Structure formats: structure tokens, C-alpha cells
């Protein structure tokens, strides 16, 4: 009997757990260790954050699903990995601290034969002074954050109706943030909410981003075909900003958020401050606070993880400068080079470098989006890793399954307003996620698989994805037919 331990129960961890149990059956143990008791469909937090959807529609408790599927669920935060075991453990094991009410901090040691690290991001609000809900700005990264943000928005709209004029600042709270797509979505949903409330003409909406140009989205932008021409996501996004009357501040690294004032540095090295009445600024991510120790108890975290705390996998971390970057730098199997029974999926794996062109201000400040690896790629990577482990458990001598981000596409639907008849969204596809300039020298991506369009149909698509992925995550009948 093999024992598979999965750390984390987000898109990657939950996908891995459900597929692993389905493929391995009851003869093998699948154990999930996650500090959260609920699963959250994070893309719909945007709608919670503008008061269009209650929190209950984007979360559900994990324990009943895992009980139904025969998955062992430990509501706990993994804090240590011991890949070589110890005198007391012949196998590798994980140390986890309970987050269950009444048992907080209780430690347990869980042995494994295979381990998948799907711990996702640590929301690093501390990287910028005053950033975050405990500081002076808002967030939609968790359902609780989004709910709080919606209350602030409702109050702001009331103040505008009472005669005030207000400035809303939405974007990234640090020069190395990722998830610019989420900031984009919140910006346009905010614009939509203000228009619906009839107060848009009394509000300024400012998009403050670390992207050097609009439409970068952390993937270096897109080139796609529209009405017989190749166009760029830059022009396409700028047009949307102009249409909706949204101002943009680009190439910005927030240095401090004070009550009502955000301070930022731009790529040209200049420093600015901007007053606001409402600010939703996303944090940068870092890896979970997870340490690794060898059999003798020596700390080997710097060998297992990169400096940001993400697990090193089969990527080329020595590519050097931007001019040397190649598609082959990106990992394929997501296996740790040190321990062949440890894998990472989703945000938890260490990318070899950014996807967007790296940029630094004259003051030495890095202002470049980190590579996104959420959503569809996250689920596909998790499934490939599970398939590799299942093969090994069953003694199939096949090579490891591969899911390189340079070979997979992604569908991204960025909401721009939630309404069944009046909403809209930017529906984008890209193939591959990481551009391959050797294979596609003019565009970086396959034009047949890369597209973008704005309209009501995009909103229907976004809503359909919400329904399908919640159905799948709840492991309802035939859930596995729904692709990642």
C-alpha cells in the first residue's frame, strides 16, 4: 500500500487529490494536508468583491467531499518536510500543525511514499509597508478579503451618492506581483458597479500596475488575429481602458501604502504618491513557510526551495539573462531534482524565471510581473504529476508524464461586469502559456490557439466555468469528465 501526501487543497492540490484517489482506488492512501477547511473558487472572488455574489457561492467545506471519496483530510499547515526520514521514521515525513478549532498548533508527523507540494502562495502583504486588509488597502485574494472589500465598496458608493467625488485605485501592491489579470478584472467590475449605481461620472478609476505596458498580464502580452490583422493585447487593452475611461499607471512598484495615499516608484526611477479613497491592491506571492531537513536534522531548505520559498523542480535555473531564455528552461515533470518522490504543482513550483521581459529601475528596483501559474495550468500540472505517481505505484515502467507550460495552452476569461444580459468579459486563449520564440519566431505563440474578444458571451463563459469547476471540485457524478 502506497501513501501519497498532498500539501494544500487549492486548484492544484484538490485536483491532485481527486484524481489520485480515482486512479489509485482504495488500496492506497491519499492524504491531504491543508490549513483551510473550505475550498474557494478564487476567480469568482472578483464578483464577491463588488457585491455581486455572496461568499457562500464561491466556497464549500472540503471535509464532506474527502469523506465521500475516501481521502484522508488533515486540517493542518505543513511546516517541515523530512525527505530522508529520521531515526523514528523509515520513510520521508511531513510535520504539520493543526489549524482545526480547539486543536490549533497541535503537531503531527505524517509519513509518505510520494509527496506533492501544492501549498500555493503565501500572500506576502508584508513586502510593502501598509499593504493589505490589516494595513491600508483592500484585497480580493481570499473570500473573506473579497467580502470585506465589497462592504467598503458599498459604503464608498453611498458616499458618492451623498455628494462626494472619489478616487479608486486598483492594481498590484509590489513590483514583483503576479495575477495582473485579477487586478484587471476587479478594475472593470468596479467600473461596471459604479456605472450600475449611476455614480461613475463622480469617480476616478486608476489602474496601478507593475506591468510595463497594458495587456502584459505577466505573460509578456499576446499577439493574436482580429479581423484579418495581427494585433497585440497592448492595443486591445488600451482600447478597453479608453472606452471605459480608466487611467493607467504602468511600471509601478508600490513602496508604501498610508491611509489614503499610495507611494510608488516607476521604471524610470521617479517616485510619486497618489491619494485615494478606496484602494484594492494585490500582494506579491512567496512560497509557504515550509522548511526541509535531512536525516541528521540539518536545514536543507535552500537546496530544496528557491529563495522565495518555491520548490525547485526539473527547470533550468541557470538560464541567465533574458536573451538566453528558452522554452526548454521550463519544467516538464515537476519532480524535485533532489528527491524523486517529491513533486510540486501550481504556484508552489519554482519557475525558472519570469515570462515577461525583466525590468529594473535605475535605483535597482525590480519591477516585473512574476509568472502566473494558476488556474488551468495549475490543474493540468497537478494531473500530470498524479499520473506519474500512479504509474510508479502500479509498477508501470513508463517515463514521467509531462505538462510543460511551453506546450500547454490556457483559457482565461477576465470578467468586466457581471450581469446575465448586460455583463461582459474579455475571453482569451493562448497557446502556449510561455511563448516559444524558437518555434513561433514572429509571435511567440501559435496564432491558431491564441485569441481575444470582448463581449457578453465572455461573461456567459465565465459563469459557465464558475458552475462547472464548482461541480467538479465537489466531485459530483462524472466530475472527472470536466477538463482541467
Amino acid at each position, binding site marked *: 500500500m502506497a501513501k501519497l501526501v498532498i500539501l494544500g487543497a487549492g486548484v492544484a492540490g484538490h485536483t491532485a487529490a481527486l484524481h489520485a484517489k480515482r486512479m489509485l482506488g482504495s488500496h492506497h492512501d491519499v492524504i491531504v494536508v491543508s490549513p483551510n477547511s473550505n475550498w474557494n473558487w478564487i476567480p469568482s472572488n472578483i464578483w464577491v468583491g463588488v457585491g455581486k455574489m455572496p461568499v457562500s457561492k464561491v466556497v464549500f467545506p472540503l471535509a464532506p467531499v474527502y469523506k465521500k471519496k475516501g481521502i484522508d483530510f488533515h486540517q493542518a499547515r505543513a511546516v517541515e518536510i523530512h525527505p530522508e526520514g529520521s531515526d523514528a521514521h523509515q520513510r520521508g515525513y511531513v510535520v504539520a500543525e493543526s489549524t482545526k478549532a480547539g486543536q490549533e498548533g497541535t503537531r503531527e508527523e505524517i509519513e509518505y511514499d510520494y509527496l506533492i507540494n501544492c501549498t500555493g502562495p503565501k500572500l506576502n502583504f508584508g513586502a510593502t509597508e501598509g499593504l493589505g486588509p490589516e494595513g491600508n488597502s483592500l484585497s480580493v485574494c481570499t473570500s473573506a478579503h473579497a467580502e470585506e472589500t465589497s462592504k467598503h465598496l458599498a459604503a464608498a458608493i453611498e458616499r458618492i451618492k451623498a455628494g462626494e*467625488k*472619489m*478616487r479608486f485605485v486598483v492594481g498590484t501592491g509590489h513590483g514583483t506581483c503576479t495575477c495582473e489579470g485579477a487586478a484587471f478584472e476587479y478594475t472593470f467590475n468596479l467600473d461596471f458597479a459604479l*456605472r*450600475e449605481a*449611476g455614480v*461613475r*461620472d*463622480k*469617480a*476616478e478609476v*486608476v489602474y496601478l500596475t507593475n506591468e510595463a*505596458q*497594458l495587456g502584459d498580464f505577466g505573460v509578456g502580452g499576446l499577439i493574436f488575429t482580429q479581423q484579418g490583422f495581427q494585433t497585440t493585447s497592448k*492595443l486591445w487593452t*488600451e*482600447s478597453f*481602458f*479608453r*472606452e*471605459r*475611461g480608466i*487611467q*493607467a*499607471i*504602468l511600471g509601478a512598484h508600490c513602496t508604501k501604502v498610508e491611509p489614503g495615499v499610495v507611494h510608488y516608484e*516607476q521604471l524610470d526611477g521617479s517616485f*510619486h504618491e*497618489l*491619494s485615494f479613497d478606496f484602494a484594492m491592491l494585490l500582494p506579491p506571492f512567496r512560497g509557504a513557510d515550509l522548511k526541509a531537513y535531512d536525516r541528521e536534522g540539518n536545514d536543507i531548505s535552500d537546496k530544496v526551495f528557491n529563495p522565495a520559498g518555491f520548490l525547485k523542480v526539473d527547470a533550468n535555473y541557470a538560464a541567465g539573462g533574458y536573451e538566453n531564455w528558452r522554452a526548454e528552461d521550463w519544467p516538464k515533470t515537476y519532480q524535485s531534482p533532489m528527491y524523486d518522490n517529491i513533486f510540486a504543482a501550481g504556484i508552489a513550483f519554482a519557475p525558472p524565471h519570469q515570462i515577461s521581459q525583466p525590468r529594473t529601475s535605475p535605483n535597482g528596483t525590480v519591477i516585473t510581473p512574476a509568472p502566473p501559474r494558476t488556474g*488551468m495550468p495549475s490543474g*493540468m500540472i497537478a494531473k500530470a504529476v498524479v499520473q506519474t505517481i500512479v504509474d510508479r505505484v502500479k509498477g508501470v515502467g513508463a517515463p514521467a*508524464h*509531462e*505538462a510543460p507550460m511551453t*506546450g*500547454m*495552452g*490556457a*483559457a482565461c476569461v477576465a470578467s468586466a461586469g457581471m450581469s446575465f*444580459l*448586460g455583463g*461582459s468579459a474579455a*475571453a482569451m*486563449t*493562448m*497557446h502556449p502559456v510561455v511563448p516559444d520564440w524558437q518555434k513561433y519566431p514572429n509571435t511567440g505563440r501559435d496564432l*491558431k*490557439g491564441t*485569441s481575444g*474578444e*470582448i*463581449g*457578453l*458571451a*465572455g461573461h*456567459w*463563459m465565465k459563469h459557465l466555468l464558475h458552475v462547472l469547476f464548482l461541480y467538479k471540485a465537489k466531485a459530483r457524478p462524472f466530475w472527472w469528465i470536466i*477538463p*482541467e
Partner: protein
Amino acid sequence: MMVDRPLPIHQLFVKGIDMSDIDPQSQQSVMAAPLPTPATLKHRKNLFYQLLRFAAINVKMIRVIGSSHH
């Protein structure tokens, strides 16, 4: 009342920021981008047309998903 059109430029700065104070290069780039025509804006909300686009987006996404799952 729902505002369903581009805002006049003077309404972008209701708090009185001057464009030169707030990343003038970005503002110029945005203001130089093409605006959708009234017909395009109508198409984006036309139920019949959007039903067709919904089907087309589904096909595109299925194609991308299909080419990514090995």
C-alpha cells in the same frame, strides 16, 4: 442611470488630477488607442450575435484544452 458609453475626457479627472501628474506616457498611449465603433458596442451585447460568439469561444477553448491534454 447606467452609463454605457466612453466617458468624456473631462469626467476622467473628477478629483482634479492633471494628466501630467499621472504617468503622461501611459495616458497618451491609452488615449491614442482606437475606440470601438457604435456597431461593435452593439454587437458585444446583441443576444443573437453573442450566442454565436459563445459557441465560437467554446470551440476555441475546447481546441486549446484538447491540444494541451496529452
